[in-house]
């Protein structure tokens, strides 16, 4: 096993920082802080984890959920709270979808479905990796993914079809 070097951290930052922040923003208003702490945690490791990307996602997930627990206001219920402070996606003129609408759609589907969709589509994680991170089985993760997409399709239905037309 290799040690954690600045080069590795730099590469992981370039490739995954924005995706990890998107993953963290589901629970936290300051995803960049959480991702930064996760990278610092990685730097502390004697050896590079076997799957550094999965490892980072797990650390980010744990820290973001802890953040939500400690910062959650009484008015906002845990299962429905998602960050509203910054944009989730960059606007892409080439996409049929409106970034803001997708973000809103994701915020309105169940948390476990949203998490799997974000981790799989934008994080590039396999269902096995997602299952390991979330503590479920890969089949459950896949089921959440499918049901999440259906929910999202229903929520985006109007804008999606309108734009297609």
């Amino acid at each position: 096993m290799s040690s954690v070097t600045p080069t590795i951290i730099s590469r992981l930052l370039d490739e995954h920082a924005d995706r990890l922040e998107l993953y963290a923003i589901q629970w936290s208003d300051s995803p960049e802080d959480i991702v930064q702490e996760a990278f610092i945690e990685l730097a502390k490791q004697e050896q590079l984890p076997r799957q550094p990307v999965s490892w980072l996602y797990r650390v980010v997930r744990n820290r973001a959920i802890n953040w939500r627990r400690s910062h959650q206001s009484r008015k906002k219920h845990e299962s429905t709270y998602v960050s509203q402070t910054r944009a989730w996606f960059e606007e892409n003129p080439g996409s049929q979808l409106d970034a803001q609408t997708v973000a809103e759609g994701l915020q309105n589907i169940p948390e476990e479905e949203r998490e799997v969709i974000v981790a799989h589509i934008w994080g590039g994680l396999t269902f096995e990796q997602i299952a390991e991170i979330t503590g479920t089985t890969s089949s459950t993760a896949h089921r959440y993914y499918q049901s999440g997409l259906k929910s999202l399709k229903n929520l985006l239905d109007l804008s999606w079809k309108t734009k297609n037309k």
Partner: protein
Amino acid sequence: MENEEQIINELVEELGKLSPSQSQINRDDLFYRAGKASGAGKVSGIKHVQSKKQLRIWQSYSAVMTLCTFIGFGWIMQNPVNSENLKPSELMVEKNSEKNSLENNSDKPEANIIFSDENSNVRSENSFILSEDSVRSDHRIHYSRFKPKPGTYLALREMYLGDGRTGIIFDPPQFQEPVDSKPAYEEERKPKTYRELMEELMDSTI
């Protein structure tokens, strides 16, 4: 069914075209903190020795200061102030410290001493007034550490008797302030204007 699956596939494709917002991580800060966390540059041999040396110096200094403190306490304990010679007739229970002090000091220019129980927080209720005749040479007197409060007199010196009592020496009448005036410490803080200084100078010259 097939149509729905196709729509979902298209949806996934479109979702994939969206990019997450740009990272807002401060990379400089991250690498600085990551470097510190990983311990890079922490164990530089010379630095380590230097810090150890500094630590030893600091430890020696602390030890010397502690020793001095103990020696000081030891000296104080070996030289207790004997308060047995104080005559009870000279002690006067102070019912109203301000009033009594004013009255006494108006007749006697010498300092008034208030003895109080060391354990008592309320000096004015458990204190006594002595004339300066009662102050003996073996009473240790030093300057007070506390500030006078509004309506009280300037307590300039404090005296330890060694028997669990503390004496406070108030200054002669010229240092006393009227009860209804501003606290002395407030006046002291206020800087005098040029005009006031000039007037004072003129008065003193005349």
